[in-house]
C-alpha cells in the first residue's frame, strides 16, 4: 500500500503523520522559502495530512532562540527574520528606504492606534485635512487598507493597519503597539468630541 504513497495523495491519509522532527523541518523550509509571513492555515494545507504546524512552529522558534535569524509571529502568520542586533552586517541589503513625511507618519500612527478610523476622524485628531497623497502612500506601502464602512450617515470608509504593517514594525499584533494601554487608560483613544459639536463645526456655527 505504501509503495505508491508519493503518487496518490489520498493514500497519505492512511499513513501515519510525519514525525514531529520532520514536521519541524517542513515548517522550517516553508518559513525560510517565503519572504512574506505564512499563516498556520497555509502551512497546514501544504503539509501532509495529520500534521500540527503550530506545534512545529513552537519547536522551531525554540530552536532558533538566540540565532542569527528567528521565528516571529505576525498577526495570524509566522515569518523568519534576522535578529535586530545584527542589522550592522546587513545594512547592505537595505533597499533605499523612502523618508516618510511627518504627515504620513502621524496618519499611520493614528490609524494604528484608533483603527478602524475614518478620514474625518484622522483630520479631527491632526487638526488638518489629510491629503490624498498621504493615504495613497500608506496604502501603496501596504501598511493600511480599507476596513469596513462605518454604519453612520454617509457610511464613510474606515482605515485599518495591515499584517504587512505588523511585519514591518515587528509587532505580533496591533495590541502590541507601544504605549497602547497607557493611551487608552488616559482616554486619549476615545472618539471624544466637543460637547454638542466638534470644534470646526463650532466655528461655523458661531460665526
Amino acid at each position, binding site marked *: 500500500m505504501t509503495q505508491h504513497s508519493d503518487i496518490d495523495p489520498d493514500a497519505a491519509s492512511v499513513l501515519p503523520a510525519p514525525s514531529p522532527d520532520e514536521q519541524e523541518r517542513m515548517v522550517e523550509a516553508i518559513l525560510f522559502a517565503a519572504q512574506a509571513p505564512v499563516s498556520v492555515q497555509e502551512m497546514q494545507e501544504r503539509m501532509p495530512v495529520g500534521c500540527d504546524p503550530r506545534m512545529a512552529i513552537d519547536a522551531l522558534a525554540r530552536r532558533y532562540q538566540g540565532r542569527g535569524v528567528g521565528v516571529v509571529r505576525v498577526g495570524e502568520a509566522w515569518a523568519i527574520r534576522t535578529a535586530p542586533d545584527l542589522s550592522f552586517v546587513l545594512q547592505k541589503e537595505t533597499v533605499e528606504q523612502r523618508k516618510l513625511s511627518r504627515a504620513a507618519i502621524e496618519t499611520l500612527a493614528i490609524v494604528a492606534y484608533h483603527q478602524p478610523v475614518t478620514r474625518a476622524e484622522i483630520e479631527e485628531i491632526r487638526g488638518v485635512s489629510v491629503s490624498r497623497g498621504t493615504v495613497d502612500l500608506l496604502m501603496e506601502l501596504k501598511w493600511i487598507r480599507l476596513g469596513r464602512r462605518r454604519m453612520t450617515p454617509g457610511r464613510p470608509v474606515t482605515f485599518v493597519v495591515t499584517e504587512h504593517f505588523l511585519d514591518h514594525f515587528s509587532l505580533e499584533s496591533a495590541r502590541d503597539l507601544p504605549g497602547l494601554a497607557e493611551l487608552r487608560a488616559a482616554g486619549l483613544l476615545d472618539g471624544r468630541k466637543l460637547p454638542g459639536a466638534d470644534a470646526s463645526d463650532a*466655528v461655523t456655527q458661531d*460665526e
Partner: protein
Amino acid sequence: MMSDRDPSGLTSAPDQEASARKVADRLAAEALIVDVDGFEGPLDVLLMLSRTQKVDLRKVSVLQLAEQYLSFVTKAKALRIELAADYLVMAAWLAFLKSKLLLPPDPQAEGPSAEEMAEHLAFQLERLEAMRGAAAQLMARDQLGRDTFARGISEEVTRTKKVTYDASLLDLMQAYARVRTRDEFRPYAFDRRNLFTPEQALDRLRAMIAFAGDWTDLESYLPDGWTENPEKRRSATAATFAASLELVKQGQIQIQQTDTFAPISIRKSR
C-alpha cells in the same frame, strides 16, 4: 514666546548689546513666524505654543494660549505673511473663546460652555501630542529592511498545476479493441444511412398529396422509421420541407405557418 519681551519688534536690526538669551528668544520667535509653512495647521501651532507654558497639557491655560495664538497671527500679519484661512478661523474662534472665558457665563446661551470648549481644546492638544509620541515610538521600533531583514532570495512557492491523468479499465480495453480492429475499418466515406434526400421526399409527397384536401401538419408526411432517431428525424423533416416548397413553387400545394415555430401545414391546391 511671541510675547513682548522684544519691544523693538521682529523687524528691528540685530541688537549688538542684547543678551544672548534675548537673541535666542528673538530668533525662535522669528523662526516661528517665518516657518509658518512648516506647521501642520493651527492645532500644530497651538501645541507648539502650549509647550512654552511648561505645564501638563491638561493644566494648560487656554486663555493664555488664545492670547499667544492671537499675537502669533497678528505678527504674521504684520510681516505680511499669507496665513491660510484655517489659521484665521482658529484665531476668530479663539477670540470668541477668550471673550467667553472672560465674561461671566450667560445662562441663556446655548451650546457648550466656555469651560467645556476650553477643556476640549486642551484634550485635542493632548491627544495630538500623544499621537505624535506614539508615532515616534512606532518609528523607533525595529523596522523590516532597516533593523530586521526578510529572506533575500525568495524561493517562491511554486504554484504548480498538477495534472493527474485518469483512465479506466474500460478506456484501456476500448483503446486496445480500437487498435486491433482498425483493419476492419473501411476508408472514410460520407455516412448516408441517416440521410433522407429531398428527391426521396419529393417522390413521397407527390404520391401522398392527392389525398391532402385539408390543412395537414407537414410532420405527418415524414416516412415511417424516421421520426424516432433525432438525426434521422432532422434529415427527413428538412427534406420534406424542401420538397413541399418545391411543390408550392409548382403550384401543386399551398403552405402555411400561423406563427414563428408553429407547425407548418400543407394542403392540395384548389
